[in-house]
């Protein structure tokens, strides 16, 4: 009886497990493996030939243009995360501690999450129409007399990209910070006050450390998403705004060097995974310290 039951159980396990397992092996494990293999191939007409050589990696690490693009991408992604944090933290703090009506809290929370449901492309596009030479900002500044002629300083530069990417990815910053702040028991903050700490000291020594896991998670998400973006740079970035994903996309398009593109994608993958692992470790460290 027990034997028959455990056999049935095992069959059931197998039936539950096999579709997702098969899918992940076929469409996740296999492509990532092939990506690694491909990065050692050589580009040759019409596309690439099998090989095992480090030429693609050597090119990436010796040609300074790749390092420049990587640094620029990291800088922009860092600025985006910072700006998003500066906007998101007060907002999340207000939601968690200052709003007393649950209905209002839900509405304000949804107000931040809702734009995620609106096309990403259109959200980036609307900034192009706002910042352009004939755009809203220019015509507004001219009609108020601040500018006498349209200025091209707003669009096609890194500032435009930072603003656009912050706009697109800010929900990913608000969500984890709010989740972390919401978990802080209000009596901890009151206890700190009762024990004679001022509001600023309480904020710096209680609230911020306890919110840190959320801040780190939000920073990681925003950074990684901006790091891999290749749409906004084309729409609002201009010549000095190309990011690493654009260079990768170009290898699979006009530049037609798939092996080099694969190697670049792997470099990007390692960076992103490194950041995620570091933030994971940090979060676990924080949890261990708290408990």
């Amino acid at each position: 009886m027990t034997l028959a039951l455990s056999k049935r159980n095992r069959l059931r396990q197998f039936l539950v497990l096999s579709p997702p397992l098969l899918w992940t092996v076929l469409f996740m494990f296999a492509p990532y493996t092939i990506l690694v293999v491909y990065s050692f191939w050589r580009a040759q007409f019409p596309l690439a030939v099998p090989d095992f050589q480090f030429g693609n990696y050597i090119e990436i690490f010796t040609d300074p243009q790749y390092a420049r693009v990587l640094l620029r991408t990291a800088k922009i992604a860092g600025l985006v995360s910072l700006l998003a944090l500066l906007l998101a933290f007060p907002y999340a703090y207000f939601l968690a501690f200052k709003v007393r009506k649950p209905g209002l809290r839900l509405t304000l929370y949804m107000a931040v999450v809702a734009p995620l449901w609106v096309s990403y492309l259109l959200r980036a596009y609307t900034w192009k129409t706002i910042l352009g030479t004939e755009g809203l900002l220019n015509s507004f500044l001219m009609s108020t007399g601040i500018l006498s002629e349209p200025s091209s300083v707003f669009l096609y530069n890194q500032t435009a990209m930072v603003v656009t990417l912050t706009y697109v990815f800010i929900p990913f910053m608000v969500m984890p910070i709010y989740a972390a702040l919401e978990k802080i028991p209000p009596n901890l903050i009151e206890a700190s006050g009762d024990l004679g700490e001022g509001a600023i000291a309480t904020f710096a020594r209680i609230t911020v450390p306890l919110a840190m896991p959320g801040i780190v998670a939000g920073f990681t998400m925003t950074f990684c998403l901006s790091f891999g973006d290749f749409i906004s740079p084309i729409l609002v970035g201009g010549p000095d705004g190309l990011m690493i994903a654009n260079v990768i996309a170009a290898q699979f398009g006009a530049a037609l060097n798939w092996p080099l593109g694969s190697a670049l994608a792997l470099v990007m993958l390692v960076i992103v995974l490194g950041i995620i692992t570091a933030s994971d470790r940090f979060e676990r460290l924080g949890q261990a310290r708290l408990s």
Partner: protein
Amino acid sequence: MTALETSVPAITAVRSTSRKPRRWGASLGWGLAIGTVLAFLYVPIAVLVLFSFNTSRSLSWPMEGLTLDWYRTLAGNEQLIEAVGNSFYVATCSTILTLLIGVPAALALDRLSFPGKSAFRKLVLLPIALPGIITGISMLILFRMVGFTLSLETVIIGHATALLAVVVTQVYARLQRLPRSYEEASADLGANGLQTFFLVTLPNIRSSVIGAGLLSFTLSFDEIPVTFFLTGRDNTLPMYIWSTMRRGLTPEINAVGALIVAFSAVLIVLSVILMRDKPGAR
């Protein structure tokens, strides 16, 4: 820590009644901070919608007049209508696929133990943080090697894979809150595995499955990085908009945008209503 929590509520009650009179400087500061974020989020969307009614071709202020012409142009744009159809096809198929794979995956992660489980979890959840471009190009190389022709179907496979992480995280979170005793009781009462799943487990995780499905649908409808690399000659709506944008900006794009905003708003309201757990479900 727990001792602290249990002893404090009485004090909390006293303190919250004797709240200090709010300084209005502070409220002004908060108002400004919240207002800035909300304006930052919604002025661009308002601009997008507003300019879809602009009489002039250019997108500058002040608007010259109001018109519905751009919507009329849309109705006659066959390429656009075909792209919308393609997007519905892709989003529907990839949502169904990703639910069919993602719900069992979440079940397996929550209820089963098997060798390689942690590697499986890492692999499934990877795309949520991974730039879409990596999923896109790695699948492109795979399809190229196997000799698949790129089409809407390859896009569907790509979307289903990229969205798997969304479904798994949402359903897994719900499963964790679901007591196992329900399923044990069901088994004790003689139900077999399938009956237990369809009559006990699924009704209890229904809201998360629907929520994940709606979210997957929207994300797929809107997806660019994966579609960019995996599509053949057919365009999805975002790809069509993308190619139009590169030719020039017209209020016609704004009109498409306004319709998408309206459509998304309906979906958001729908998901909020559907995802609200019934009081007893927690």
